[in-house]
């Protein structure tokens, strides 16, 4: 399916919503866009979603008894998705990559398109890219050993008062550990190793609604307790890490129960949603009414609306729908000073600096976002993937730049470098028919031999078009015409789709790598157009050089893609991984290299972050990034809003 054209494309490339096809089990070969249900969200998650509250009909306190002995309260909290997710890796417990006995890679479970398939070329790619071997395993600790978790430091008075409110809480080790980390490499690595934790939250609370949050924050202020809001737990900036120097009781405020769509306004095309809702649930629930937000960050299976607001998230289809700051109409948040919100839902206001922008990107340092009014759109009628191969990365960047200049970017347009292109191909499932095999060979022959593209140079742009059929086809033609002027050749829908698949399974692949002594991470930046090429080049070279200097035996994988385009620049996303055999402290080495890479980014005109945020990982560069006065402004806001540092996760500043 390498260079497939329309004729040989998979049967479900034109589905109503882009994301569904990636994450859902699909009866392969039998569905088409016409026969498939408009939304697939309910399908793979039926077990979970059955008990989910529906739009407008909140289910109150569902406190069914559970196994195990509750420690402090007899009203068991509902633990959100915790039950079906890994405690020491990415995603669902039932979904993971592994090398089976035949040495072939396979993806377990039933949730994804790749689930249950074998990936014959992954092992070769893996071993050749990292100099790794499937014989050298570095397995993770299987269960959490309670002895590595420090005992909770509870604030008795706070606990007593909390009990009186009836809000569920817990201080079980598993609950606390689950909320003590995000998905930075060092965090996951430590979980896998079963290392002793220095500091984890002392308890977890599950508020059910805005008013619960108000009560919790009031109590926290009263008893001087530290609150750390927790949404989906997908942070990659050490934002959820408990500050080791924090001596007060740390309470993780889990928003997962605040997951209802409170109302939907079709006149103004907005929905009012509780901030704890997880991306895929929000999308599924809206789909049922024929709407979507169109906000699809790569983490949307697990990340929450409140988290998006708190980190200034960006979605894959921002070209059509906008980033989170463009989508949000109204934010309600609870701070130690009280509740902050605007008095109207005017689409734009001139009322001094926009207070939403204090909350957007505040990373849990000022309060908890409880409710958000956001724009919704009718589900697009038609959706189509596409891809273009370019002989070189330079040509691809020039094309994306031109597309941005003409402001005709499709819902998503990404340019993957050569390494990522090969990486994507390593994820191709087994091809059953000889015919497909033959066609693939033919395609490859056409591109590399007849068109003279060097397989070690060529890059691929992946495209996603959305809208009404007529316009999508027109739009498609426009983009392909521009691509042609830069030497680009259309390479079929399947290649496009595979590109997006990579971003959704990449975190699962990292777990696979970590099973075999490979550590990996991704990071991002945004940069003006004229510096895109130089930045990519220099950052990769810096990583390679730093790894060499630090004794990494095998050259690391460094790969990047231009993942978003803007009028004046682009967002670049890097993957970086290396085989750590022979290193005494791989995490430390990794951190040094990542640090150097970030310095290189900043020196090359890149931003500190495009959408991951700052957290604690990149705090040290804030002063240089926003000036001393800028830091002072933020500090004074924090000082006013939260003088006692109740929201004490110490992110950002």
């Amino acid at each position, binding site marked *: 399916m390498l260079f497939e054209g329309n004729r040989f494309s998979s049967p479900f490339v034109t589905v109503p919503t882009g994301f569904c096809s990636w994450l859902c089990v699909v009866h392969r070969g039998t569905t088409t866009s016409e026969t498939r249900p408009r939304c697939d969200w309910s399908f793979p998650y039926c077990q979970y979603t059955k008990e989910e509250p529906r739009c407008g009909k909140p289910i109150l306190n569902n406190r069914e008894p559970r196994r195990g002995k509750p420690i402090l309260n007899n009203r068991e909290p509902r633990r959100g998705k915790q039950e079906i997710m890994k405690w020491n890796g990415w995603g669902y417990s039932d979904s993971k990559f592994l090398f089976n006995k035949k040495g072939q890679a396979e993806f377990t479970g039933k949730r994804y398109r790749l689930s249950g398939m074998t990936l014959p070329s992954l092992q070769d790619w893996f071993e050749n890219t990292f100099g790794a071997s499937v014989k050298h395993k570095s397995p993770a600790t299987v269960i959490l050993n309670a002895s590595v978790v420090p005992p909770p430091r509870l604030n008795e008075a706070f606990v007593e008062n909390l009990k009186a409110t009836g809000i569920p809480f817990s201080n079980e080790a598993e609950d606390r550990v689950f909320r003590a980390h995000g998905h930075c490499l060092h965090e996951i690595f430590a979980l896998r190793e079963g290392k002793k934790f220095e500091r984890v939250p002392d308890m977890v609370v599950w508020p059910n609604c805005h008013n619960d949050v108000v009560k919790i924050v009031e109590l926290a202020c009263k008893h001087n307790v530290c609150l750390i809001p927790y949404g989906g737990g997908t942070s990659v900036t050490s934002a959820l890490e408990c500050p080791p120097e924090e001596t007060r009781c740390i309470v993780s405020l889990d928003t997962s129960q605040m997951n209802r769509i409170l109302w939907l306004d079709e006149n103004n095309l907005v929905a009012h949603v509780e901030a704890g809702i997880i991306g895929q649930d929000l999308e599924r629930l809206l789909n049922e009414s024929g709407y979507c937000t169109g906000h699809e960050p790569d983490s949307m299976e697990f990340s929450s609306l409140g988290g998006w607001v708190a980190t200034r998230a960006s979605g894959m289809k921002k070209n059509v729908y906008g980033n989170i700051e463009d989508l949000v109409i109204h934010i309600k948040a609870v701070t130690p000073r009280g509740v902050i919100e605007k008095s109207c839902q005017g689409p734009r206001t001139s009322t001094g600096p926009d207070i939403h922008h204090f909350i957007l990107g505040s990373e849990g340092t000022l309060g908890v976002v409880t409710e958000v009014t956001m724009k919704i759109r009718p589900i697009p009628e038609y959706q189509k993937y596409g891809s273009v191969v370019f002989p070189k990365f330079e040509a691809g960047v020039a094309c994306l730049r031109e597309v941005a200049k003409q402001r005709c970017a499709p819902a998503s347009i990404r340019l993957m470098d050569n390494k990522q292109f090969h990486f994507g191909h390593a994820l191709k499932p087994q091809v059953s028919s000889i015919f497909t095999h033959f066609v693939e060979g033919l395609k490859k022959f056409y591109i590399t031999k007849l068109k003279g593209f060097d397989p070690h140079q060529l890059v691929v742009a992946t495209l996603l078009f959305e809208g009404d059929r007529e316009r999508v086809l027109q739009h498609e033609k426009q983009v392909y015409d521009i691509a042609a002027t830069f030497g680009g050749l259309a390479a079929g829908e399947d290649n496009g789709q595979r590109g997006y698949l990579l971003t959704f399974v990449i975190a699962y692949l990292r777990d696979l790598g970590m099973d075999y002594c490979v550590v990996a991470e991704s990071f991002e930046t945004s940069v003006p157009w*004229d*510096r895109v090429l130089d930045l990519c*080049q*220099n950052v990769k070279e*810096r990583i390679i050089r730093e790894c060499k200097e630090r004794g990494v035996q095998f050259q690391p994988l460094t790969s990047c893609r231009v993942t978003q385009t803007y009028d004046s620049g682009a967002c670049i996303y890097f993957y970086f991984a290396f085989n750590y055999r022979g290193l005494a402290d791989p995490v430390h080495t990794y951190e040094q290299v990542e640090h150097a890479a970030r310095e290189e980014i*900043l020196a*090359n*005109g890149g931003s500190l972050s495009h959408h991951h945020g700052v957290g604690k990982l990149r705090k040290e560069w804030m002063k240089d990034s926003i000036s001393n006065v800028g830091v002072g402004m933020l500090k004074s806001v924090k000082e006013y809003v939260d003088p006692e540092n109740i929201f004490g996760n110490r992110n950002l500043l």
Partner: protein
Amino acid sequence: KACTPNYSPGRGWPCFNTDPMLKRDCFEDILEERRNSSDLKYALRCYAPVLYKGVTPCKANMLKNIVLQSDQLHYVINQVSQESGEAPDIIQEEASVILEEMAHRLQISTVRCFAFALSKAFKTLFQHVCVNEEGIQRLQQAIQEHPVVLLPSHRSYMDFLLMSYILYTYDLALPVIAAGMDFMGMKFVGEMLRMSGAFFIRRSFGGDKLYWAVFSEYVKTMLRNGFAPIEFFLEGTRSRTCKSLTPKLGLLNIVIEPFFKGEVFDVNLVPVSISYERILEESLYARELLGVPKPKESTSGLLKARRILSEDYGSIHVYFGQPVSVRSLAQGKVNRSTYNLFPRHIPRKPMEETQSFVNDTAYRIVRLQEDNMVLKPWVLMASLLLQNLEGLELSVLTEQTVWLRGLALSYAAFLDWPDQAPTAKVVSSSLALHRGLACVSGDRVSLVVGEPLGPVTPEEALFNRAVSVLSCASYRNQVLHVFLRPAMLAVAMHTAASSKKNEVYNCFSFLWDMFSNDFILCPGDTVQDFEEACYLLVKTGAVQMPQQDIVMTDIGQPTLSFFNGLLEPFLQGYQVVCRYLCEEASEGLTEKQYIPAVRSFAVKLILAGNLRCYEVLSSDMQKNALAALLRGKLPTQKALLARL
């Protein structure tokens, strides 16, 4: 090709210096093979150098197009057009003419011609042309990884032909060389040089924005694309005195900027030290310094110069130094993100931080060049002879040369002293090679004074003597960088009112400031240099440093007085300039009048028997002294005179 070095000047060093950075490579004589095999075959052999990241080199014409179409140039063209009211396409045309005049047209066929001709010429002129092969290997590695800038020392016209010849010999990418426009005057030869990789720049184009834009973009384009190593002379011009010249920063700024702007990951600067046992231009330089103008470069002049082909010029040593990574140098010194807020194609004056970084880098590179200059025994002998202008007994000279050799080696001089030969042999063969400068009559060795043809005026006699003194000084100057810091300390100890360390330091610092045009003293390094000087003098036992004092030891006398003598001509020279400015100079003295005026002032003093120092007559020294005074760091002339 045999890889074993013919001989190694590094062998037999005293062991006190264990600094691994100072470990030097061995040499190989590339002429040896030329003497044993066909030059024609050599010129026609297969030449396939490795290139930067395996890029295919672009044709000279394509390069011009890239430059002419660059955003950088377009911006300046529009700017100039707006300022002058001229249409942009006319300015564009002008730019294209400038580029035409400037650009090289590197052609392998021309290089092969040169390879053939130079083989013949080198074999006649020189005994050996020695190259450190390890340096070549390092360079080959560097060329593949990052854009390379070759920075050779500049003592002779031969330098850049020699460089290209060596790189061709070792199958390395041929450099493009920034050359002064004066070469273009040589009709045929200018074009030949152009086709062997030279590109020509005007000597001065201060205010010409367009010229600067074309020029800098041309150089940067070659650098960014890794088209070829770029070669230029940091010193800007040939040093007539064999002292390294204060580096010029223009081109260095240009080649470093792409790194700051993130256009390349790194730039490697490769210092190259080219040492001549005898410089072809030896007496020409001396005459030039005395005010006989430099002959205009012309083809016929070159042909006349053929007679030099009949002489023996000893050997040449070319040392390719360790590539210096600009990235590593700039680490922590320059914040590259300051370049983020300005479009990269708009020319901008470098920031202060950058300027001082480039300046500092330039000095460090020149010092690296100096460190790897190979010194011949004659250099030591010349230093001794200049302190004994009336002549020396041969045996005394031999004895003192041996003593000085020990001193030089303990200061880590890169001395090429034939180990096997007896000292007397070394001294006599040096004298033989330099018979134009020194002669032995009876038992005495003295400087040769140009044969007077018929009756001469006292001025003419003085002039002849000055020529031989200055020629000789150009050899002494080669060793100065080794002795400079301890010598300044010796002078400081001599002049300081007490032996207190801080007083000696004050004197040292005064000398350091004063001489910073004459010698390569890295800005801001005064304290470091002082400490180095103390370390070296203590190491060789000439000085003791009890408590806060610096005092001479019992055995320190010869060393310190040699060092005092070494700098004596410079001190006297500065003194004369001061005296002239105090006593004679009129109000409206222009710089043009200054040099001849000081010269005749000095001539008067010498003829009157009040001055015995001929080096004052050197225009180089006069200029440097004036520059030191103009820098304003020094006290007024009168005060200076008083201190001297």
